[in-house]
């Protein structure tokens, strides 16, 4: 493989080959509903209609995409939220019949001339949070769905038995088919369906099929993820990208959907009907050259993918280790990227959508599985990515081959690697303290570093083991906390403080203890603690670029809104800041990477055929960002109390953590809290912990004060009707009335006040407590050079 320039037909992965009787699988399909449709033309990035499928009634219909919809929601996640708002009610639960799974493309989605233009954006009500969860993933589904004629797919209702939803972009038909015989686990199911639905028995035809699936694990866990396939011409297997966060796979399986399949005949670089391809191509060529010349000197994304930052996080004390107690660990060097580089198949282009030259979707071929149902099989494993390696650091699994196997099974079972790792790391810590033990864990010795027990837990989740621990564990940290507290197995505060979840969703894999801004990045994130809204640790902690509350609030206003934009356009965020132009450091605001933001403005201008500025992109995004928060308020979890992180994310919970970084915390007591060296000397660790605890919690309240103020929300975190109206949602009367009622209720409870404990020399964000009664918009140029 290393020699390069090998024709695709000669590539060998060394994987175990499967032979299935595809005809027999096909014969068992019973078509429950089928509707033909006119494919229509894609105009300037929009197919112009969405597809609605109801599995309870077997209704299949089209809905138009209106100009207003484009104006207010742009596309992607925006369309998803809009359809969800129209389709559900405030009491809808994840497993309610009316809950919807909405998968959307976005106007730039499906273009190939720039990196990262193929992301699918999906939303649903999450089992973990009870809120809207949005998740994005690569793979071919969103573009193929669009090329088939739809900007989004909206699935409501539940099937009685396992079905496949098939969008046939070749024949112009949508069908719901009973599919009893196929496998459920993703790596096998995707392969079967790729062969079953390919228009002919050729590699080209298989590349034009994409499969959305989950796996057996998703049937029994809130951590269920979706797998989106992209057929690899060289490896000759469908590879998998995950909608990891929030339990979308659990919703898929709860609806008895085995898979969603889309196929097309083919497409070219003009399929999205861009108005000015030259402008787009120019930006793309420039960017690809940047990748050619700079990636190897910057992040090595093309060589090791996102795993390149394991060693960086380890060096800066940010790599979550043993449930976030530590940020680095001697054994962590085992998981540094060169160890995975050894395993990755090299040279092959690894983009999860065509034309992505960042190509971070690394894969390991011919990997021999050692546990579970596929023991002895040789398989292609997608990843490990950073989060997977770091997740294993969190569980103390320090061998690369453990990470790879664990990663493989999470994917094929349809389990989110991030939630699984953060969850199990928490269970392991509780095990260490004796709050859990072998008996309480259904016979599992779930201590840090126990790979066998970790895998056994996963295999038991996948088969639907009835043991009480396994069932609670599969629902995540929030339910585990409730279970531990109800059983009175430990001190409630310790149980609450150690478990890394907000709103019911598990944290992603970064230690935020020493970065107040990142504590906000996690705690204030709309869907729950995922770093896709804000990753401010370096700006805040390492480079000290945002020292004041006001600075941090500005960052927590701008970056979440900017990062939301990728989800509207149907894009991946990584090509924005995982490589930077050579002269980026000399720009007025290097953290924004202004040249790359301009690239996106150029791409959208070139597609639409009208000038779109950098500030216009932010405007598109601010609408949707606020709309989602308003939906959280609607569903009862959009207030300050829901944005509170566990203390583990804010500082040391245990004495061990304090002592492990004693110099740092003692210094804080002296410099920030004004205690003398002598006083500190005399204090016990418990006393010091208490002081740090109170100080940092107050710091967080002050941060939230500043951020809500900057966002134009009330002090309790509610976007005002005034703000929503000025963003363009004046016609959404029900939403505006709902928000006003929430604010009135908060007023009656005295909740619209500052929450920080402000000293005489400290300023509140604004003297006028009712600042939000204005239009709530602070218009400004974000790129004032």
């Amino acid at each position: 493989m290393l020699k390069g320039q090998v024709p695709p037909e000669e590539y060998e992965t060394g994987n175990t080959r499967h032979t299935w009787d595809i005809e027999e699988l096909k014969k068992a399909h019973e078509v429950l509903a089928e509707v033909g449709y006119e494919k229509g033309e894609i105009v300037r990035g929009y197919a112009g209609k969405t597809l609605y499928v109801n599995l309870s009634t077997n209704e299949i219909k089209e809905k138009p995409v209106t100009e207003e919809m484009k104006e207010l929601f742009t596309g992607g996640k925006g369309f998803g939220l809009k359809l969800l708002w129209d389709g559900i009610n405030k009491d809808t639960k994840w497993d309610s019949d009316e809950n919807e799974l909405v998968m959307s493309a976005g106007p730039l989605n499906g273009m190939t001339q720039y990196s990262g233009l193929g992301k699918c954006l999906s939303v649903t009500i999450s089992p973990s949070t009870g809120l809207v969860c949005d998740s994005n993933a690569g793979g071919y589904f969103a573009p193929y769905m669009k090329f088939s004629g739809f900007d989004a797919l909206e699935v409501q209702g539940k099937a009685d038995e396992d079905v496949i939803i098939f969008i046939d972009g070749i024949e112009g038909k949508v069908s719901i088919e009973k599919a009893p015989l196929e496998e459920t686990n993703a790596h096998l199911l995707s392969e079967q369906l790729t062969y079953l639905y390919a228009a002919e028995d050729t590699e080209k035809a298989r590349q034009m099929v994409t499969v959305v699936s989950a796996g057996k694990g998703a049937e029994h866990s809130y951590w269920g993820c979706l797998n989106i396939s992209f057929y690899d011409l060289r490896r000759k297997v469908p590879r998998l990208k995950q909608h990891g966060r929030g339990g979308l796979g659990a919703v898929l399986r709860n609806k008895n959907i085995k898979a969603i399949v889309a196929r097309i005949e083919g497409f070219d670089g003009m399929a999205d009907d861009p108005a000015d391809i030259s402008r787009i191509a120019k930006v793309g060529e420039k960017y690809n050259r940047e990748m050619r010349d700079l990636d190897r000197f910057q992040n090595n994304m093309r060589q090791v993918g996102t795993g390149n930052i394991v060693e960086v996080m380890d060096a800066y004390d940010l790599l979550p280790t043993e449930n976030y107690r530590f940020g680095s660990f001697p054994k962590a060097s085992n998981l540094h990227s060169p160890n995975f580089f050894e395993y990755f198949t090299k040279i092959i282009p690894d983009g999860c959508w065509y034309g992505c030259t960042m190509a971070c979707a690394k894969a390991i071929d011919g990997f021999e599985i050692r546990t579970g149902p596929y023991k002895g099989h040789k398989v292609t494993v997608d990843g490990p990515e950073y989060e997977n390696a770091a997740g294993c650091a969190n569980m103390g699994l320090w061998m690369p081959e453990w990470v790879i196997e664990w990663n493989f099974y999470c994917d094929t079972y349809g389990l989110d690697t991030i939630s699984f790792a953060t969850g199990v790391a928490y269970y392991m810590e509780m095990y260490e303290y004796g709050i859990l033990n072998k008996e309480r864990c259904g016979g599992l010795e779930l201590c840090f570093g126990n790979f066998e027990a970790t895998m056994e837990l996963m295999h038991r989740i996948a088969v639907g083991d009835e043991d009480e621990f396994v069932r609670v564990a599969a629902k995540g940290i929030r339910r585990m906390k409730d279970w531990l507290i109800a059983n009175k197995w430990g001190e409630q505060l310790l149980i609450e403080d150690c478990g890394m979840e907000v709103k019911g969703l598990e944290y992603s894999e970064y230690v935020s203890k020493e970065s107040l801004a990142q504590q906000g990045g996690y705690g204030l994130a709309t869907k729950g603690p995922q770093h896709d809204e804000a990753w401010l640790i370096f700006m805040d902690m390492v480079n000290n670029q945002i020292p004041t509350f006001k600075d941090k609030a500005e960052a927590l206003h701008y970056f979440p809104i900017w990062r939301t934009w990728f989800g509207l356009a149907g894009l991946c965020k990584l090509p924005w800041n995982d490589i930077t132009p050579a002269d980026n450091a000399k720009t007025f605001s290097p953290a924004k990477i202004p040249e790359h933001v301009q690239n996106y403005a150029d791409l959208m201008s070139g597609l639409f055929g009208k000038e779109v500025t950098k500030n216009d992109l932010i405007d598109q995004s601010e609408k949707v960002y606020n709309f989602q928060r308003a939906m959280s308020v609607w569903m009862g979890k959009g207030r300050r109390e829901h944005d509170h992180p566990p203390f583990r994310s804010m500082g040391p919970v245990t004495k061990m953590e304090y002592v492990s970084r004693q110099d740092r915390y003692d210094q804080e007591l002296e410099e920030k809290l004004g205690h003398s060296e002598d006083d500190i000397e005399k204090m016990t660790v418990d006393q010091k912990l208490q002081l740090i605890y109170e100080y940092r919690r107050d710091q967080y309240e002050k941060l939230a004060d500043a951020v809500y103020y900057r966002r134009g929300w009330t002090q309790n975190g509610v976007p005002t009707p005034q703000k929503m109206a000025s963003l363009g949602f004046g016609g959404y009367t029900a939403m505006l009335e709902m928000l006003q009622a929430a604010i009135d209720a908060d007023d009656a409870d005295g909740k619209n006040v500052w929450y920080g404990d402000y000293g005489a020399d400290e300023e509140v964000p604004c003297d006028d407590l009712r600042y939000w009664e204005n239009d709530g918009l602070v218009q400004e140029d974000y790129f004032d050079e």
Partner: protein
Amino acid sequence: MTGEKVKVLRYRADKCVGCRKCEKACSKVHFKVEKGGDRSAIRIMKAKGDWWEKLPEAVRKGLQGASDGEAEGKYVMHVCDQRGLCIDVCPVAAITRKPTGAVWLDRKRCVGCLSCIGFCPIDAMRRWEGEIEPFKCISCGSCVRACPEEALYMEERDVEEIKEVVHHRMGP
């Protein structure tokens, strides 16, 4: 099977008079028009003024007739040298080495992603404004036949000797 030998286009700077008949022949092959210029895979440039400073580094690396910019008043030539690094960056495997050893781009399979353009180490993969699919020298020899001065010729090389594989190590 791919070829073991490949014909690479070579240039005699001392013979070129800058008539650009080679470019016109090339654009005839690729676009069925005798326009040359941006529709030609082979490019003839006149070395004058600050031309060297203006050239991207990658283009400089691929120039024939002036390796160090010392060519004032003369003509230089720039074309693909069939090293084939682009083969492994194409996500749809539209670029292959043919039995003749030449590197071809199949425009019917191409999805216009421009990866090959960005990754060509000498910027010799080209795109004409009117189309999204790139094009390149296919070692057909039309330019050699069109040159009245015998300034162009084909040199046979071992593929193994000239081929270059896309960067796949960690770090520089």
